């Protein structure tokens, strides 16, 4: 059976990864492998779909996808986040058609069944004539509710009942996610998303963001030509970094002192209030700043200093969030957001947003050169199979580390890429 064959291949690939640090390139383009990914990964793992701040008011909703399946993420009249399959429980028509909106009820356009925004079935037209009263609304139930949960405002869906709870899934990565999304007493808000369909396999960008400082020197060399949209990434400096993996994720930390100097003074108190104590300690006592990272399977986050049109010395801190939704083995949809502190001064928000657009949004100069690599790797992986190397610093030992996870201290390192790929092969082969 094809599935068994691929699972065996994945199990062999796991062994080769551990031994040589290489992986077969068809994981970036094979249709058979993509088939299996859908079941083993996207229908089993916790998949992030959005952020609570996208639906600030009662009745606000967004429609998001896992693979092709669409879900309504809505804030009900009590202010609680709810998630429903976008499928009428009568004969399955989608009840929600916009990408977002505000509604107290969803009315199915097919036969008019109506649901409130807790998903409850509240109306069936012509009840008497149609069912002679022989239907019990409660028994029929309402819109189907998948497993969902939130962390740091991120909304996740899990299509399997067997998967561990979200908190356990995120595990030690929560510590690092908090750096990016638990930064004020009032939380973060996400601007966007920009949605872009790219001819890339969904994994490459995530692996890149979790682990690859090596590419910055070449891929992002053009930043040097553009002072006003230049992320002040210290491109030429031999700057040791920590490459850390924890839970399903991995990220890099720089030793460049705390973030606070790249945020306006008036935000500092609230940032200190928001960040858990342990996070602050690591940052303030050791001077470690988290930068780019992500977690398995499809999430990217980065907080970095970016210059703005106000000039080269005007670097400010900004955070962007990205999610990949696979469409096929070789095509994905990227959702891109700018994340800002909810209570930040308007002026700062404006500048952070402009920095995001210039560097990391749909037209961002960083994003487009990255995307070009990922699309080209995807294209190159079609046809004859060769082994891709993720063996950099494979024999290097982790260093002592006072925070969750395993840390390596080096300028370049692919330990986090291997961490992603290990989880990938384990999930694919059924060894997780």
């Amino acid at each position, binding site marked *: 059976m094809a599935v068994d064959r691929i699972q065996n291949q994945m199990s062999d690939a796991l062994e080769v990864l551990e031994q040589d640090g290489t992986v077969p390139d068809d994981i970036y383009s094979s249709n058979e492998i993509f088939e299996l990914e859908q079941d083993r990964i996207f229908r089993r793992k916790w998949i992030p779909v959005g952020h609570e701040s996208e639906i600030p008011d009662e009745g606000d909703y967004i429609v998001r996808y896992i693979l092709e399946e669409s879900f309504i993420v809505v804030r009900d009249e009590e202010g609680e986040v709810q998630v429903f399959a976008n499928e009428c429980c009568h004969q399955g028509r989608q009840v929600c058609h916009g990408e977002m909106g*505000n509604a107290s009820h969803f009315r199915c356009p097919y036969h008019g069944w109506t649901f409130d925004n807790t998903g409850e079935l509240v109306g069936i037209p012509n009840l008497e004539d149609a069912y002679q009263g022989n239907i019990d609304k409660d028994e029929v139930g309402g819109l189907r509710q998948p497993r969902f949960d939130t962390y740091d405002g991120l909304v996740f869906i899990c299509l399997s009942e067997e998967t561990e709870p979200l908190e356990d899934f995120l595990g030690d990565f929560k510590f690092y996610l908090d750096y990016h999304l638990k930064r004020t007493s009032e939380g973060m808000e996400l601007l966007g998303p920009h949605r872009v369909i790219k001819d890339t396999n969904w994994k490459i960008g995530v692996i890149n963001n979790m682990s690859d400082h090596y590419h910055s020197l070449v891929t992002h060399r053009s930043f040097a030509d553009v002072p006003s949209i230049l992320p002040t990434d210290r491109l030429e400096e031999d700057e040791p970094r920590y490459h850390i993996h924890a839970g399903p994720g991995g990220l890099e930390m720089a030793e460049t002192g705390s973030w606070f100097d790249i945020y306006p003074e008036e935000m500092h108190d609230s940032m200190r209030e928001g960040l858990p104590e342990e996070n602050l300690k690591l940052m303030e006592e050791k001077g470690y700043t988290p930068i780019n990272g992500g977690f398995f399977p499809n999430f990217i986050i980065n907080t970095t200093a970016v210059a703005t049109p106000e000039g080269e010395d005007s670097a400010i801190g900004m955070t962007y969030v990205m999610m990949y939704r696979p469409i096929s083995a070789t095509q994905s949809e990227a959702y891109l957001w700018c994340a800002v502190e909810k209570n930040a001064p308007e002026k700062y928000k404006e500048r952070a947003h402009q920095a995001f657009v210039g560097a990391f949004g749909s037209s961002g100069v960083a994003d487009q050169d990255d995307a070009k*690599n990922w699309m080209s790797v995807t294209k190159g992986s079609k046809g004859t199979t060769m082994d891709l190397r993720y063996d950099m610093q494979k024999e290097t030992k982790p260093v002592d580390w006072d925070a969750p996870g395993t840390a390596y201290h080096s300028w370049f390192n692919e330990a986090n890429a291997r961490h992603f790929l290990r989880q990938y092969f384990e999930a694919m082969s059924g060894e997780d």
Partner: protein
Amino acid sequence: MASKQTAYVDRNTHWEIEQFLYKEAEYLDDRRLDDWLELLDEEIDYKIPVRVSQEGRTSDFLDTYHMYETYETLSDRITRRAGEYAWSERPPSRTRHFVSNVRVEPGDGEDEYEVNSNLLLYVSKGDSGDYDTLSAKREDVIVNTDDGWKIRKRTAYLDITTIPLDAMNYFL
């Protein structure tokens, strides 16, 4: 006073502005980006808002932009592209800007005009047989200066929500 709908400008002005927009398209498609920059007023406010498919709200645009540019950032994007390391445009895309339905109305200032046009952008890349298109409505403020016609403000309202290109890497 004439109502907005009938506030025509004279034929000659209309013709000049139309020719100006065609010239602009030519500069973009011939990749004469420095010449293109010359057509912009230094105060330019250049935006491409993100469209969204909405129900139950009044606007179908988000408070974010695919491009949110000043003269300086536009000029930097052009400088970057002219450098050696703007990999996403190596080799450069081939584009064709089709400008139509040009409507010109008097603007606020004396030599200022509100110009609406439709835009169809065709993009082809590398050796692939595929191409992409984007369609938009452009709302411009165009001024007649001592240095000739200049664009002072441009907002390009895309008709699509999800960008079908790998990056929104084109001036509209």
